[in-house]
């Protein structure tokens, strides 16, 4: 895998985790 692809994957993972995490956090707190 190229360096560019690795960098992009790390950044996508950060973005998706933040997005899903913030919803999941308040979903769990709310429940």
């Amino acid at each position, binding site marked *: 895998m190229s360096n*560019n692809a690795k*960098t992009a994957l790390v*950044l996508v993972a*950060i*973005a998706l985790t933040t*997005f899903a995490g913030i*919803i999941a956090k*308040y979903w769990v707190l709310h429940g």
Partner: protein
Amino acid sequence: MSAVLDQHGHAAPHGEHRGHPSGVMRWITTTNHKDIGTLYLWFSFIMFMVGGVMALVIRTELFSPGLQWVDPDFFNQMTTMHGLIMVFGAIMPAFVGFANWQIPLMIGAPDMAFARMNNWSFWILPFAGALLIIAFFVPGGAPGVGWTMYAPLTVQMGIGMDLTIFAVHLLGMSSIMGSINIITTILNMRAPGMTLLRMPLFVWTWLITAYLLVAAMPVLAGAVTMTLTDRHFGTTFFNAAGGGDPVLYQHIFWFFGHPEVYIIALPAFGVISQVIPAFSRKPLFGYASMVYATSAIAILSFIVWAHHMYTVGMPVQGQLFFMYVTTLIAVPTGVKVFNWAATMWKGSLTFETPMLFAIGFLFLFTLGGFTGLVLSIAAVDIQLHDTYYVVAHFHYVMVAGALFSAFAGVYFWLPKWTGRMYDETLGKIHFWLTMIFFNVTFFVQHFAGLAGMPRRIPDYPLMFETWNRISSIGAWGFGLSQLLFLYVVLKAISSGAKAPEKPWEGADSLEWTHLPTPVPHHTWETQPVLH
């Protein structure tokens, strides 16, 4: 930045486009960073005009007390869409346009890392913009909730709210993809010898901004997704009746919203950091401290969000924490302002249009920063919250900060992009009209706010009439002045004098020192080596 090159940027001949689409298809299918930069810049200007017309509707209604032209519901729609379009459709894409044009040129990269994704990032935008506009024509009209889209009002809006939420999702996707592209390009595709601390400051500010975007935009996407599920899928994240909390929305929104301020401001700082040294004929004073100050601002921007919410009833300890860390931002910001002033100190200054806009930025952005300090004091903010003082403050930051810097950048790089010079006299007239009418519009809003005039209202007591009349006259002058900008740019492109190879003798980044003017369609096919 000083550098010695072993190889010059390779200018490919223009005949290289055999078999490539032309006309409209060229722009739809392009993967060239320069084309995509141009698309971003024109798109942002169109949205600037659309958002500007909305601002004029607002200011025309506010010319006199009482309801004159639009009903209150439509007025709220105007304030909402003006904010959303200016922030997400005009200012942010403008600086992404600069990033697309300049970053590969400045670091010696042949293009952005993911050229096809770059095309996609841009072409999402017109659809998002269209959704925002279409919202006006659906039952219930566009949402009138303010650009912050606070719950629980968002739950009560019509289908226009859903279109807006979808538009925000698209805009966020575009920003995140653009940021991934920028970070990857800067980290992995710099020319040999272009170490991080030799990069032009514009590139540094965009590297930090792109990280802010990757961290902050998903938070906004999460907030509007929760709003969507509250509206249609039976959740009650923000609905107190179901055990939720409307104030939670504000916390999540501003956790995104304050970094967003710096997402807009940092690239503006980057442009100014290129322009001031070029017209001072001196290297940027305190380069390393500028990098550290930019990083410090970015980090602090994530821990100050609740200074937007002093009035929700937070504990005094919370108010104190957010007050202190907010005032702390003045330190790295002060470092930057000091460094720009020190760069000019004993420089061989000339005052062409880019420099005028940069100095205008310096004065007015600093004024916006000072009013920000005033508002950071919780006891004061509780008095001024939701008044026109706040409106004046953030327009000094957003318009005099970001927009002035964007104008400086366009005038600065237009000769490099097009090979044509703009009309210097008209450029200067544009600056002075913009400078004067900007202050006529927004300076008086401080007084209206201090006197207690609330924001986001179509009607007001007679005591506020004078300030509002002055502000509305200024707004029309400011808006019309921007037509002159359009004329100056079109005139330069169509019939401007041929630009010299290096029109600004103090400019020293790679695109000025080692690439021809106008810059060829493909550059750095052989990467330069810097010693």
